[in-house]
């Protein structure tokens, strides 16, 4: 700051504020100090501290320009003409502006700085000191005015001042008080752009203009003491910090406790156990001896009700804790590309550990089903290094898996991960000047894949036909365009300016936030007659549009049928779909989209329970490769494999991130938003000839058959924790795939009774549904193998392997 105004300023503010109205005051400064002069300021200038320099005790935001570093935080921009400006720090403690005027009619420039937060300037005061060389005063064409911008760069000027009325070669203080946006005589704001929010001012600057001034007129302009005195305390600046209390991570650990004895086929309760195992294969990532034991003793509905009360395994806090444990900062403000791989390996481990070791099996199974409908994927580099975001997206799906579908739609829509994946983020309203129009990506896939599908459906999921027996499209290109306009104006929750990109670990997990400048506020009409009125905010528009989609009669059958396909059977009867869709439409208490009711309707339906008896040749679904591995890992208590990290930490992990290569699919690793397979895929040959759907066959190609079989065998042979080899295993921290050790104590204890061993495996993996021919063939093989000495071990491995790749295990019936 220059010397005199430092003393002068507080007085001025108080004087002028007391006057009530607005005024600009020209106070001749008796001690011009335009040129470098010895300063009496302390030489220990502040180091480069962040701007602004707040003086919180009086709520003054005070730019004193005492050091060059503070000047650096101001930017210069030419706004017209050809003027160039040198900005420097004047030793007197001011910002020095030396324009090279070029005599253009519209020479104009601005200097400005970000306030580092959002400030409410309602009834606030702004003042600044300007030193103007005499030449400008004599010429008189120079004009200047302060201005402010809000969080979205909406603009408001304060008031033009002209050089001819100023004191040459001297300091003048301009002060503006009681700022508001009311257009009256007391308002110091000049031109206010429509949409400007005085409550969210983010930037201050000064415009300086010279229209047609002779080039001979010049000199260095100094500015100092820019002060903002808010009337009301500053509003909380964004970015908002992440929710502070991190939940205590759920402990995910392998089961090493002995299993209860399972009933044998001759036992009275065997059928109950088999029924329970079948049910668990639908409702969880695979039956275990313990879960069969539990499920046998209660009704299906009681089991579901118990599951609903299980605390959700939250992957994000576990991920943060793991990332910290292996020596990285969990939440970075600037994420490092070099850490992306390690972070995503941790995330993938945690996904598998949740699926295999998590207690909230039903919630997680439904979440996995939802992840195959509301697809996001980091196969494309759009989601590169977004592991926190993907973990959080998963947690969001799992939260609403047993919640309400309407809330799920809102959260998916505002998820920054979906925003990035389907490019809704930074999607702006049409700009005729730049000849751009809204991005249609999210609008299209939201309708086609997430809610209503392409053609009108009957309640039972069949295609509704027109009078001419043609399918009826649910929407047309006009609907896409209208909906695309709804989804305009959203960016990361942590940014304050539209064109900012976020590269921090927080933005991935916060809902997107609206920037009204870029939101299309006009009315939108969907489906010919459903109008979203003009003038709604971005938030209101989305809620209105999602209400329309949510209430479309297609959603019930469209979503219900896909969830049945994910959990129970690829070819549900029309009546089954209708029963579930009816529940979706109304849970019995006039609630639409109640996911608990929908999940119960799916799993408690007679077709789910008895379909394998009534439709023995077609009921069920191909076990997708991920579920095959998961089933084996759960039944035989996968212990993980010891991953050795660079900081020396060794922890057992379920390390299976390479499954897109090995299994043809990977959670959150689909090739496109169309998932690993389509719900209406028909495997050529007898399946297609029978007009059956077989989604999971779409990825069961010859190459996948070989690689997924190898993956299963790698997991089985010599991997049990009793063996010497697994005990010495060590997995490199960067490896993307490694077989898990299995805990086979129970199986080994049955080695002397081959039939009992096979019965146990049959019950665990197949709900006792192994066909007689397969059973007999495997048993014959077991009988043919010696079990002398150590040979009973490979006999067990062979048996496990043959069952796991059998056509019987391939189909979940």
């Amino acid at each position: 700051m220059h010397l005199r105004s430092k003393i002068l300023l507080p007085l001025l503010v108080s004087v002028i504020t007391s006057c009530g109205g607005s005024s600009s005051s020209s106070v001749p400064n008796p001690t011009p100090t335009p040129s470098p002069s010895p300063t009496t300021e302390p030489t220990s200038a502040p180091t480069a501290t962040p701007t602004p320099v707040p003086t919180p005790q009086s709520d003054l935001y005070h730019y004193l320009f005492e050091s060059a570093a503070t000047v650096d935080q101001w930017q210069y921009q030419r706004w017209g003409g050809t003027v160039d400006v040198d900005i420097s720090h004047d030793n007197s403690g001011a910002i020095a502006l030396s324009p090279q005027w070029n005599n253009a009619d519209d020479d104009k420039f601005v200097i400005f700085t970000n306030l580092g937060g959002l400030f409410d300037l309602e009834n606030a005061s702004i003042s600044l000191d300007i030193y103007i060389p005499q030449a400008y005063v004599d010429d008189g064409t120079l004009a200047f005015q302060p201005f402010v911008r809000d969080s979205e760069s909406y603009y408001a000027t304060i008031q033009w001042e002209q050089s001819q009325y100023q004191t040459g070669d001297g300091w003048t203080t301009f002060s503006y008080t009681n700022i508001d946006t009311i257009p009256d005589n007391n308002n110091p704001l000049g031109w206010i752009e429509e949409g400007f929010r005085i409550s969210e001012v983010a930037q201050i600057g000064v415009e300086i203009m010279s229209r047609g001034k002779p080039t001979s007129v010049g000199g260095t302009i100094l500015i100092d003491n820019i002060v903002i005195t808010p009337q009301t305390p500053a509003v909380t600046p964004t970015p908002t910090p992440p929710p502070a209390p991190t939940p205590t991570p759920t402990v995910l650990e392998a089961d090493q406790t002995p299993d209860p004895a399972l009933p044998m086929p001759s036992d009275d309760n065997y059928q109950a156990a088999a029924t329970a195992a079948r049910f668990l294969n639908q409702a969880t990532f695979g039956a275990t001896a313990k879960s069969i034991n539990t499920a046998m003793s209660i009704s299906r509905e009681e089991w579901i009700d118990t599951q609903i009360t299980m605390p959700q395994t939250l992957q994000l806090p576990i991920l943060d804790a793991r990332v910290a444990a292996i020596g990285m900062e969990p939440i970075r403000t600037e994420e490092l590309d070099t850490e992306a791989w390690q972070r995503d390996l941790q995330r993938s481990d945690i996904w598998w550990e949740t699926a295999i070791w998590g207690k909230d099996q039903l919630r997680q199974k439904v979440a996995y089903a939802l992840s195959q409908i509301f697809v996001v994927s980091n196969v494309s580099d759009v989601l590169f290094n977004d592991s926190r975001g993907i973990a959080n997206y998963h947690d969001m799906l799992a939260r609403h898996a047993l919640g309400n579908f309407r809330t799920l739609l809102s959260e998916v829509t505002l998820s920054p991960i979906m925003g990035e994946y389907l490019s809704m983020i930074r999607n702006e309203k049409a700009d005729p000047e730049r000849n751009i129009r809204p991005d249609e990506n999210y609008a299209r896939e939201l309708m086609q894949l997430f809610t209503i599908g392409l053609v009108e459906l009957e309640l039972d999921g069949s295609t509704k036909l027109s009078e001419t027996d043609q399918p009826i499209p649910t929407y047309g290109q006009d609907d896409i365009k209208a909906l695309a306009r709804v989804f305009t104006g959203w960016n990361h929750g942590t940014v304050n300016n539209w064109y900012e990109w976020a590269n921090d670990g927080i933005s991935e997990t916060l809902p997107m936030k609206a920037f009204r400048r870029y939101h299309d506020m006009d009315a939108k009409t969907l489906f010919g007659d459903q109008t979203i009125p003009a003038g709604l905010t971005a938030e209101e528009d989305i809620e209105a549009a999602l209400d329309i989609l949510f209430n479309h009669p297609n959603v019930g059958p469209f979503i219900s049928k896909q969830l049945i396909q994910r959990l129970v059977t690829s070819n549900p009867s029309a009546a089954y779909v209708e029963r579930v869709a009816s529940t979706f439409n109304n849970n019995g208490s006039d609630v639409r989209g109640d996911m608990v009711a929908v999940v119960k309707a799916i799993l408690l339906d007679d077709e789910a329970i008895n379909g394998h008896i009534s439709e023995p040749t077609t009921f069920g679904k191909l076990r997708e490769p991920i579920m095959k591995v998961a089933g084996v890992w759960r039944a035989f208590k996968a212990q993980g494999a010891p991953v050795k990290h660079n900081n020396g930490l060794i922890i057992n992990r379920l390390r299976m991130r390479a499954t897109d290569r090995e299994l043809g699919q990977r959670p959150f690793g689909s090739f496109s938003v169309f998932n690993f397979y389509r719900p209406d895929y028909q495997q050529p040959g007898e399946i297609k000839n029978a007009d059956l759907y077989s989604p999971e066959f779409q990825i069961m190609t010859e190459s996948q058959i070989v690689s997924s079989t190898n993956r299963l065998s790698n997991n089985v042979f010599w991997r049990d924790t009793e063996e010497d080899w697994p005990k010495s295993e060590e997995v490199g921290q960067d490896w993307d795939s490694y077989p898990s050790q299995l805990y086979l104590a129970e199986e080994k204890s049955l080695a002397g009774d081959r039939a009992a061993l096979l019965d146990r495996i049959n019950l665990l993996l197949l709900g006792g549904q192994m066909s007689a021919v397969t059973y007999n063939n495997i048993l014959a093989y077991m009988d043919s193998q010696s079990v002398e000495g150590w040979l009973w071990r490979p006999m067990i491995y062979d048996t496990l392997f043959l069952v796991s790749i059998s056509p019987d295990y391939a189909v979940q019936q």
Partner: protein
Amino acid sequence: MKKFKKSNYIETLNRRHFLRNCSALALGSSCALGTLGSIQLAHAQTAPANDYKALVCIFLFGGNDAFNMLIPRSTSAYTAYANARQGLAKSSGSLIPISASRQSGADYGLHPALTDVNDLYLANKLSFVGNVGALVEPVSKIAYQAKTVALPPQLFSHNDQQNFIQSLQSTTRRNGWAGRAADILSDMNTNQRLSMNISLSGSNLWQSGAATIPYAIDPSGLKNFEQLDRSSSDERMLARIQAYENILQQGHNHTFANAYAESYTKAWDLTDEVGAALTASTSLSTNFPSDNRMASSLKMAAQMIAARNELSVSRQTFFIGVGDFDTHGDQNRRHDILMSQLNDALKSFYDATVELGVADKVTTFTASDFGRTLSSNGDGTDHGWGSHQIVMGDAVAGGDIYGTMPDLTLNSDDDMGEGRIIPTTSMDQYSATLAKWYGVPGSSFADIFPNLSNFDSTDLGFIKA
């Protein structure tokens, strides 16, 4: 058994396979396959190998923005292009200029990354086909707006358009045109076990026919079952193999279990057979770029072509699908990378066909879901319709642009809105031109190309007479 002379490996493999199966079973399918395979492998050595043709489809999943691949350079047309594309326009100075005699003197330019494509174009080994798209019948803007014209179902939807482009069918029960072609032509291949249609990208509709299912191999090569290795001499392994073969060969009540068993049986047998053929065939010396999935898939296709005699095949299609072309956002950066990968992949694959002496026997072509909007959504484009394609090989009448190039002025008669360009050439015409070269008889065109009769020309002329 003296016919086994390909290599010791094959001889051992097949003899063991034959003996084991025939001694253990009455006459199971594996046994028959083993015998047949051996005979045909031997037969292939003496069969004339001249009659070979392969069609290679590079499918650019997501919708390639070909309006930034082949760009008008004449002043007025470039201005229209630049006005429509705004921030997505390639600068005129960056384009690689080409001339096209069929476009009556209009100047065109290639995306700057397509340097090798330009070389192939100059050498008459490659041509473009302009503004091809999914059509049932010719469409004018007036007819489109008046809804008086039949259209493919669900224009602008990814999977529906992929289905139409690959099947050319508007029905819900579809198969692909290469699948239907293979249904008709499969007798041309001595080897009846290996599908005529080879996919480097898994299941796909294009290669699926009524009787034809594509054989999918991984670009990284063929792997064998580690614990079901028929070439092993380990007793336990062989016993395990026997047990599993017994299980697969049982009839299974469930339709899915049966289909699964069939697929496993086929995968297993073909892994042995194709793996042996690849081992026996000459290895390629052509350099393919690494870290380019399109190129590594094409490399595997080239290796399969190199093994054509060992495999006893004279007609093959290859399907290479690569993704990420759905450039709604960040298009300038992403599409440049994609064009560069396409350029490098085409160049290496062409060189490989020269190395194998089959440059005139292998015709490569691109296809995609659709073109993209000329207009920008800020930093990307949305789903369009018509688009340009590339055809490559010595059978191609190269160095030209075929078809009718569209007017890129927004709201022109070629624009149905936002720069979604109405195709002026149909996928049926494009595909039929390729199929004719491949050997599909004209008598089958009506079945294979259901919309073809709605168009004047059935041969676009881009194959040498």
